[in-house]
């Protein structure tokens, strides 16, 4: 990333949240929304501009599951492991995805196409088991359907 672009982006953000106490988490949310993760050079810059030690920023990033330190895959798969989905067989869906894509939880496939996350309750328990790829929600998913679902997203590239 170019040095200049980084500073401008951060400057705007800091400007927007300046004077609001406890702003760090909201700033991190905006950074992650934009980049899909929190890049290290941005954290460095942020530390300078907010005048807080880098360690303080990392302390916060690593505490919260939501913030990521590495770039996500092209498509994000979130498999729900909330209680309803667990009872209806979510663990076998996760196994199947791991098998098919050769990927671990929280990791990205070698080709960078898919990132697998296990999440807690997507709020549509009536449809359990549920998985979400990017913004598309799949409900009442059967293990046998996984390959097709993945293929559909894979093809879009």
């Amino acid at each position, binding site marked *: 990333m170019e040095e200049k672009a980084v500073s401008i982006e951060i400057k705007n953000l800091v400007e927007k949240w300046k004077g*609001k*106490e*406890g*702003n*760090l*988490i*909201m700033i*991190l*949310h905006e950074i992650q929304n934009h980049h899909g993760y929190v890049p290290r050079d941005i954290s460095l810059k942020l530390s300078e501009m907010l005048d807080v030690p880098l360690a303080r920023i990392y*302390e*916060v990033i690593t*505490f*919260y*599951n*939501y*913030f990521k330190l590495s770039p996500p895959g092209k498509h994000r798969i979130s498999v729900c*492991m*909330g*209680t*309803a*989905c*667990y*009872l*209806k067989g979510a663990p076998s869906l996760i196994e199947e995805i791991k098998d098919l894509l050769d990927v671990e939880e929280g990791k990205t496939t070698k080709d960078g196409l898919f990132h697998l996350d296990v*999440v*807690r*309750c*997507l*709020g*549509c*328990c*009536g449809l*359990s088991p549920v998985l979400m790829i990017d913004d598309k929600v799949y409900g009442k998913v059967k*293990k046998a359907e996984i390959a097709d679902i993945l293929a559909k997203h894979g093809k879009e590239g």
Partner: protein
Amino acid sequence: MAVYSKTILLKDTNLAQEDRTRDFYTNFLQKLEESSLSELVQVVRVSDIGVYNKGVVIKIMPDNIMYANLKDSDIPRIINTTIKEGKPLDDLELKRTGRQLRIVLRNCGMIDPENIRDYIGVDGYLALKKVLLESTPEKVIEEMKKSGLRGRGGAGFPTWMKWKFARAIAADEKYVICNGDEGDPGAYMDRSVLEGDPHSVIEGMIIAAFAIGATKGYFYIRAEYPLAVERIQKAIEDARTCGLLGQNILGSQFNFDVEVRLGAGAFVCGEETALIASIEGKRGTPRPRPPYPSVKGLWGKPTVINNVETLANIPYIFLKGGDHFAKAGTATSKGTKVFAVTGKVRNSGLVEVPMGITLREIVYDICGGTSSGKQLKAVQTGGPSGGVIPAEYLDTPVDYDNLQKLGSIMGSGGMIIMDEDDCLVDIAKFYLGFCVEESCGKCSPCRIGGTQMLRVLERITEGKGRIEDLDMLRRIAFAMQKASLCALGQTAANPVLSTVRYFEAEYKEHIVNKKCPSHKCSKLASYMIIQDKCKKCGLCQKHCPAGAIPGSREEGYTIKQDRCVKCGQCFEVCKFKAISKE
């Protein structure tokens, strides 16, 4: 398009029998025709009408009259009396034991949540107006006391008391926080309210702020609920434009404004002191209480934290009066509770019921029993901090105290139905695993106790349990309850304790006989080929990762138990159900 004055919904609610609605439907249409009403009355066959096993059922809208167990011969009476004259027929009417009562969800699905005028059209912000212009903070707290409203976020602390404590402290700034972190996995009550009726939560918050003398409020909402965040944000802006937030609200002397802060995927941040740390931009680790937030909260100032559902009740209380609100419920628990009923239940969804209703009414009358048709085994309430309630106690009236007596808690409203196929040891392991992962790690009873307990449960489900383990579980649980810093650790053992309490035999079956009675724990299963059913296709052999299935298409196949790693692949791939799992 015809404009109908009545719509009749029709459904045969006995699943087992053949659908009898076809004749009934044609008959009904014909009779309507004969009375020249077919232009005015529309009959619709629906796939679900919300009641079960009550024969042919119709619901007449907009009158909202429901008739059950109908026969063709009832049709003329229905048309003559109810449709023409608008009078109900007592003998046909379905006496709904499955009584639902909508207070919190009163507007959800009825109004456009993005349009403040819709909300105002259903008396929205009228309660606020009454409070600001005609009442005083003391009177507001008094009214809340009459209502008996207790916090819906889990602990059930009386809301008026919390407000009174915060009011009593003099400070230049005070805060109100709406807890929209909704951490219980498998529950979505608060999400539905935030998305479906955001203004009622904001109105409740402004009234709370007026009562304690706060000037600033925060919504803390999980980032996983983007739509809820968007709706609340829009609602705040609209309220500001209408003079309902900001300086001199509705022309009064009262100033108050709110902002949104996002959670970031940490269950412990639902705990109030952790939530405060998180709004302050720090790691969400709890701190010891007292001092309670109502004395020393956000930025060290008096702070009231209320749950979304708690706040959504408040406008209703001030519209109808505290006494009216207190009419629904039991001696110690007033009003209603919203539950997200999920798991092995036929009609999964949100229900709002008066406190004091029995679990049986919720599960059977409202939600239609188990989805599998199998025996119900237990109901779990309170999520990872709660416990299981076995089927014997289904007739218990639901309120804070009764659930606690049974070793569970009301919690925030997750209600999971389990049937015979669910293994309670496995469930306990699931919930405990959740708390172990979400423990912030600050104090050792929770961090280490949880991990050790989880190890014991893992070994039990893998067939390596020892009989002393049951005692060990109880001992660690006791230590965690007594010594953990926050309620996460103090309650994390509840699912384990309650399953040990009610299903000790099931634990023993795992430990002593190395069997899982519901065949859920795969490490305890043994797989066998049922030779009579086996078509010798060889698919299982191909899929077995352990080479445990010798044989050929001519000789047939067997499973060598000593080589089997119990992965269950063969069981899943066999197309002829020729593999048994025991």
